[in-house]
């Protein structure tokens, strides 16, 4: 099953991120790496000017 029911005792935001195949590691790497693409391209634009 791709999405499992939320089963933690004490509900929390980080608990929600850990349900099913989505782990905290995958989530955090995604949110950290994605803005770095933006940083990369904005720096590239600056260098080209």
């Amino acid at each position: 099953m791709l999405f499992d029911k939320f089963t933690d005792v004490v509900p929390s935001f980080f608990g929600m991120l850990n349900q099913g195949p989505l782990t905290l590691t995958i989530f955090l790497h995604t949110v950290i790496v994605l803005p770095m693409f933006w940083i990369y391209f904005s720096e590239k634009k600056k260098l080209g000017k």
Partner: protein
Amino acid sequence: MAKENLSVWTSISFWRRSAAWVTGFATILLIWLTFDTMGQISMGTDADLQKGITKRVPAPTVINYHIDYKMSEKRGHEVPVIGKKEPFFGKEWSPKEAAALLHLGKLGSQAKNCMNCHTLLGNGAYYAPDLTKAWLDPMWGATMQGMTGKSTKEEAMAEFLMHPEKYPTHARMMPNLKITAEEAKGLVAFLKHMSSIDTNGFPRGFSKTVDQFKAGGTNAH
């Protein structure tokens, strides 16, 4: 003018911005996680217990209740189930008394260095059995009550703690640590409370050893 330094990878400002982003994000995340953890591990209150609100760590007065350990299909492991009230050492403990008893037990467990051989909530050694769910071990029922001649589980446990050398329960026998009657009571309360903590099924496979025990095997592992 010739174009120089067109690679982003050699640009200092790119690395500076990346480092600032990662460090800043991690800092905020760690602070947030700290507070999230505090919420998860903070102890419940006596009122929570009376209202049947499930907390990961229940109030000390949980020693006044029957504690069961049941497989949860939903969560894929066993969870402690707090049941009906039952006397603990023949009485009901007030929140103040229960907290004091638990505190005595905690200090006792540190003074006698239980963790030198046993494991408590994942900390300690595996020279002797894991004590995280020790209270739920069926061995304290018929077997130990029979051996010690006590009529309740808690009295049998306290008697064992005071004179472990008299009762061969494990391949490596527990030494007599000169635990007093009062300390033993505290330690049993401490263990009962610990068994009511939702540890996400830790230690794994506890039921397996319970089944083994019921089938005539031993819980010593």
